[in-house]
């Protein structure tokens, strides 16, 4: 298992994770469905997690993996509250289009 990973340069990990992060950003910017936007946020969180693990393995320091653990706990809390908010908004407006929510401006 270790031989397989040994020759991958660290730069490729950084590039790969930033590509996934950019896909998440594009998803947030181009979609109007709130649930798909939340899924894109999950994608971004996961790419950061993978990069943290890669660096933690690279430096031989386990703090990075503990931090990933906290990020996962935070993501679970975020999804629970976010989806509850989406349900409430849907109950009031009968839509999950993010452009309808512009009444929050006032």
């Amino acid at each position, binding site marked *: 298992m270790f031989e397989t990973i040994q020759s991958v340069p660290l730069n490729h990990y950084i590039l790969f994770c930033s590509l996934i992060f950019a896909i998440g950003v594009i998803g947030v910017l181009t979609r109007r469905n709130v649930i798909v936007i939340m899924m894109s946020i999950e994608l971004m969180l996961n790419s950061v997690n993978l990069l943290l693990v890669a660096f933690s393995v*690279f430096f031989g320091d386990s703090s990075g993996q503990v931090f990933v653990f906290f990020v996962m706990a935070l993501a679970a809390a975020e999804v629970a509250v976010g989806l509850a908010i989406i349900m409430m908004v849907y109950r009031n407006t009968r839509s999950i289009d993010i452009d309808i929510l512009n009444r929050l401006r006032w």
Partner: protein
Amino acid sequence: MTVFYLVAFLSLFFAIMTILSKNPVHSVLYLVVTFFTFSIHYILLNAQFLAVVNFIVYMGAIMVLFLFVLMLLNMNEDSEPLKSIFVKVIGIIAGMCFVIVLAASLKLLKTSPPLEVIDPEIGLVGNLGKVLFKEFLLPFEISSILLLTAMVGAVLLGKKDKKRL
């Protein structure tokens, strides 16, 4: 080495499919596959604990939550709101700017150290548990309070408000 590139290609493909597919249910299913490939990445890095946690928490709990909400709201392709082409093009350009800046800076760096597993014991449950309960005990307890708060908040938000309706 080739395993990494194969799995990386698969994750990129399924991540792109997640944001491209019109049907939100298909989006969730593609996202599950993406998270599965991320689990494989963790195993390749010998982070076994995180691979298992990623498998259980993300693919098990979070994705089921998404699917539940999608089916409660009864959404499919017909109810999917679409943005104009202009906004889509601008969004893709804005997202790609980030990648271009990062790739250019990596190219200027001129150094690319290979990723070697220095300490293969680092990602095992025992070692990670020791670090978690010695150095990170206070953040661990605080995160438990955070989860409790999130649970209370979700129940409070999800409850029907009888006074207002």
